[in-house]
């Protein structure tokens, strides 16, 4: 057993064939993760007790001859913005350094019911705000593929552990690209479903109309299985969708002949040439697989960054109002009055990027600016949404780059917030429309840095997204 390259299927075979027990596997996975973690700083907390208890339960079920679940014994890492009962959940923030949630997110409950084992919690940008994982109060994460570079963000830790092999699969959260972009930077699969497909109960809120829980994996199949297990209506999240959940694994037939694939030419303008070359090779692979590739237009793309950063900061300024020193562990000791306590706790507790976004969000919602910024942005959001609806009248899937460039060096963009925001251009459009969108590995640059190709489909058409990604992966991606 090579712990760093295990798949969900291999774990299951090993357990059922009694090659190893879940407890043995989890002990080995924890040992390996602890040994490797200093190279990346990807894990913030290990949940050893909880992991071993869950593994023991799986072993008991197997010993009884029972069905241990589709994810039995699978070592799973969880981004530290998803709450875990009794296991510290920091959101990458000094404010929540000692916060121990009293309940589990619905996604965690579902994965544990399916047999998965939570190994620990992963580093991320503070409250999921960032594109490089450099905004964590607990230090940056290093990209396992190139340690002088960022893993992407905000789910940098969850991407890094899967790329590094210190978890088989992981959960991240994606608001404007925070799963797809780190997946592309680390050379793995990251799949964001339709908005509402997965319950957000227990996902610490950043921008509620855009937030998703989403899986990372080393293969399309494992990402499809993980998403299947967490999808579906939840009574604790009124925005979770009642639409039936398909078996995304069964959808991986390899047959994409005749599939109409659109390429939005707007997405190839400001692209680094080595990224563009890899994506163009990827498109050739799709043609060889029998896809009908055609150019399409998504006319409102140029306005997406402006639209997104108004909406997400407005929602964030409201969602982060709760961290005021009353309920969540951290309170500034230097305050005599309630009002001072709010101000000091927040001023001392939040990092620079959170403050910047709270400020921008408060500004665009303030009297006299609401119509000009927030309402205007919501209208532009509708136009971006309608671009996609029109495009999906002509094609079944859209392919595009994930990021304008591959993983950049630590510190390279840290002092220029606007440049950092602009790097989200290709991922935020799908987020604003609320459609399924994923990153699948698409070869490497000449310097050896991974490139990700993005696949987008209609609302609730995750099955087709995974089928295309799986066929592409089997064909060797852009390397073929």
């Amino acid at each position: 057993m090579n712990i760093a390259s295990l798949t969900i299927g291999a774990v299951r075979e090993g357990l059922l064939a009694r090659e190893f027990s879940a407890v043995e596997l989890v002990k080995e996975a924890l040992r390996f993760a602890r040994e490797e973690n200093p190279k990346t700083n990807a894990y913030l907390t290990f949940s050893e007790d909880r992991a071993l208890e869950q593994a023991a339960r799986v072993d008991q079920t197997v010993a009884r001859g029972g069905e241990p679940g589709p994810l039995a014994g699978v070592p799973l890492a969880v981004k530290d913005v998803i709450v875990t009962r009794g296991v510290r959940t920091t959101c990458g923030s000094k404010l929540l350094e000692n916060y121990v949630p009293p309940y589990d997110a619905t996604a965690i409950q579902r994965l544990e019911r399916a047999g998965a084992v939570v190994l620990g919690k992963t580093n991320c940008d503070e409250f999921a705000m960032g594109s490089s994982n450099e905004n964590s109060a607990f230090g940056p994460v290093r990209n396992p593929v190139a340690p002088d570079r960022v893993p992407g963000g905000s789910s940098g830790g969850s991407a890094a552990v899967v790329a590094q092999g210190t978890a088989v699969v992981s959960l991240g959260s994606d608001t404007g690209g925070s799963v797809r972009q780190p997946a592309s930077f680390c050379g793995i699969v990251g799949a964001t479903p339709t908005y509402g497909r997965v319950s957000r109960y227990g996902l610490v809120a950043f921008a509620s109309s855009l937030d998703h829980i989403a899986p990372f994996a080393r293969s399309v199949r494992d990402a499809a299985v993980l998403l299947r297990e967490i999808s579906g209506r939840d009574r604790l999240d009124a925005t979770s969708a009642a639409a039936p959940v398909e078996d995304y694994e069964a959808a991986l037939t390899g047959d994409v002949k005749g599939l109409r694939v659109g390429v939005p030419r707007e997405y190839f303008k400001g692209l680094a040439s080595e990224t563009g070359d890899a994506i163009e090779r990827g498109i050739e692979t799709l043609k060889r697989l029998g896809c009908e590739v055609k150019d399409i237009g998504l006319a409102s793309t140029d306005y997406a960054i402006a639209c997104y950063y108004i909406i997400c900061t407005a929602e964030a300024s409201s969602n982060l109002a709760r961290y005021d020193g009353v309920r969540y562990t951290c309170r500034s000791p230097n305050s005599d009055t309630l009002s001072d306590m709010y101000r000091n706790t927040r001023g001392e507790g939040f990092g620079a990027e959170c403050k910047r976004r709270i400020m921008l969000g408060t500004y665009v919602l303030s009297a006299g600016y609401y119509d000009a910024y927030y309402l205007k942005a919501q209208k532009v959001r509708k136009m971006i949404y309608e671009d996609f609806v029109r495009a999906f009248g002509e094609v079944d899937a859209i392919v595009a780059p994930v990021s304008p460039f591959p993983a950049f060096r630590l510190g390279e963009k840290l002092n220029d917030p606007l440049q950092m925001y602009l790097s989200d251009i290709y991922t935020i459009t799908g987020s604003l429309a609320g459609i399924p969108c994923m990153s699948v590995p698409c070869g490497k640059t000449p310097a050896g840095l991974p490139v990700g190709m993005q696949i987008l489909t209609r609302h609730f058409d995750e099955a087709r997204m995974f089928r295309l990604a799986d066929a592409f992966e089997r064909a060797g991606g852009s390397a073929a």
Partner: protein
Amino acid sequence: MRITEKEVRYVAELANLKLTDTEVSKFQHDLDEILEHVNRLNEIDTTGVEAMAQVLYEAEETATLRADEPWEPLGNEAALANAPLKGAGYFKVPEVIKR
């Protein structure tokens, strides 16, 4: 300048954020740059476009409702477990108005 230092201080008040003078001037610069970019939205004609607050899809009107059944609440002790200061089953805070 699209945003003045005075406006930055006003917005920080609204947001209950205590900022240092260095932060005020840094955020004035950053917000100015971001607002310049964001102002490009004025180029786009949105006459007659409906505002989109949420991703909505075809579903029955009652699809988001659930049965009104009671279940076990979190409980007072668990809900207060992370309080910086608590007493008698409540969150405690500094005095609201100075006498």
